[in-house]
């Protein structure tokens, strides 16, 4: 397993947001994370990215425990994410957002810049080209010099994905990446995610759009009240009685 949750628990006050969540992600796949609102999906992604520390349990990335590491060190291991409530650098342009996202890979050392060395200029050009490539694969290269705050909702989500890609992640955590997108945009995102997975990225995807999740994910984990209901292929999950109950309720007999 590339990423393995071992009995991860986290409570906020009296609320058990996650209780003993256990499942694993296979490398190079898209793993879906579904469940009703408030079932702990975002908390789980916050645990992976180091924003929330688990109360107990272990989290292993390629066999290495990461649940006590700060966010920036988890990112350095190749974990990138987007946010459900979109966190862009709103007074920067789209291109600048992605260049900022290259932090871990870019040198941008101060002294060559102060001395105006040609190597600094070369590096700057290269980082702009790479950033443009990220924008292009997210389909918003035509908005490169627009301020992030001037983008439409769908464009913001794409920019956030482009910025996450600038880190060249091994594991990408997507929290409702296609919310608010129209059908053509959704198709484009589907192609993007598939090509990312083909290039070796592992994706953990939270999404409420069921057809999208069923088409894209090779395995799905269902959370309900902070507990794992089941993990399995889309077909298995769709047939699972407890999943049907959690989503649709049960008829009184």
């Amino acid at each position: 397993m590339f990423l393995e949750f071992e009995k991860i628990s986290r409570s906020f006050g009296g609320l058990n947001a996650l209780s003993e969540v256990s499942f694993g992600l296979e490398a190079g796949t898209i793993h879906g994370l579904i469940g009703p609102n408030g079932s702990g999906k975002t908390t789980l992604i916050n645990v992976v990215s180091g924003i929330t520390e688990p109360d107990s349990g272990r989290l292993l990335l390629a066999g290495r425990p990461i649940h006590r590491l700060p966010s920036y060190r988890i990112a350095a291991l190749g974990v990138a994410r987007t946010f459900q409530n979109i966190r862009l650098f709103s007074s920067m342009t789209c291109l600048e957002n992605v260049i900022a996202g290259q932090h871990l890979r870019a040198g941008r050392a101060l002294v060559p810049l102060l001395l105006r060395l040609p190597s600094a200029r070369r590096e700057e050009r290269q980082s702009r080209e790479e950033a443009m490539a990220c924008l292009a694969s997210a389909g918003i290269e035509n908005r490169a010099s627009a301020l992030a705050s001037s983008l439409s909702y769908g464009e913001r989500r794409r920019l956030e994905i482009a910025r996450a890609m600038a880190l060249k992640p091994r594991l990408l955590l997507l929290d409702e990446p296609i919310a608010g997108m129209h059908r053509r945009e959704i198709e484009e995102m589907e192609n993007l995610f598939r090509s990312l997975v083909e290039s070796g990225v592992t994706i953990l995807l939270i999404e409420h759009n069921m057809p999208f999740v069923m088409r894209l994910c090779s395995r799905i984990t269902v959370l309900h009240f902070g507990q794992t209901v089941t993990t399995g292929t889309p077909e298995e999950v769709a047939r699972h009685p407890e999943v049907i109950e959690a989503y649709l309720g049960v008829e009184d007999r």
Partner: protein
Amino acid sequence: MTVEFLSQFLAVYGSLINFIGVNALLALSLYVTLSAGQLSLGNAAFAGIGGYASGILTMHLNVPYPISVLAGAFLPAVVALLIGVPVLRIRGVFLAMATLAFGEVVRIAAVNLGITGGAQGLVGIPNKTTTFIIYGTLAATTYFLKVLGGARIGWSFASIREDETAAKVMGINTTYYKTMAFVLGAFIAGMTGAIYAHLNFIITPGEFGFSAAVQLLIYNIVGGTRSVYGPVLGAFILTALPEVLRGAGVTAGPLRLGVNGVILLLVILYLPNGLSSFFGKKGKLHAQRDGE
């Protein structure tokens, strides 16, 4: 004839010109910290520490001027590190609160210690600073900060200012860079304080108090912090303004302060990015954008 005019101009306005340069440097010291989204109200106190330390070194130990100024820059930087490491782990206004208290501690210490000359101030510091030194330092500092903005450090500062959580998950060690922004600000403030101490023969505790700290913030708000030139412009306008008003016949003190207040209010209401928004630049990478 022009030379004569110039020398006359300098004789009348020389001290004002020096003051503008010093205030611009102090404004830049706060700009660094603000550019990482952190509010420090301690930069006037850091300037005070730098000024007193370097004044005392020059007077009592006969330390050469450049070394004395460097010592005046490094000492407050070390102090800032000691304050910043515990405080900057936490998010929010704690730095403003801690530095506010710290500024008072420094002022009260300067009033009560023997070596600082008490309330009368440190008197008899040799006059070594020239207008050339002030503006040379200002130019070098401006260039340094301008380049810093495009370096790894500057991008990290900007990312933290825009969204600290997003900055963290993209791999930025936010505590480290926030502390660096604070320490670098203290370094520039201390250096400026040291230069200032060697300008006027005397420094007094009152010059580095709370109102001076707020004044630096006003330079940054009026000038704008989206560009390194903003704070310099803000310091220039607000320092020169009282003299211009005096020329226009406004002599009463409260009225002049009122004009400053009105300018601040107008900028906050109509120019959220300060006067530097007139430069017509947006975003961070302005210079190179024309190529696209």
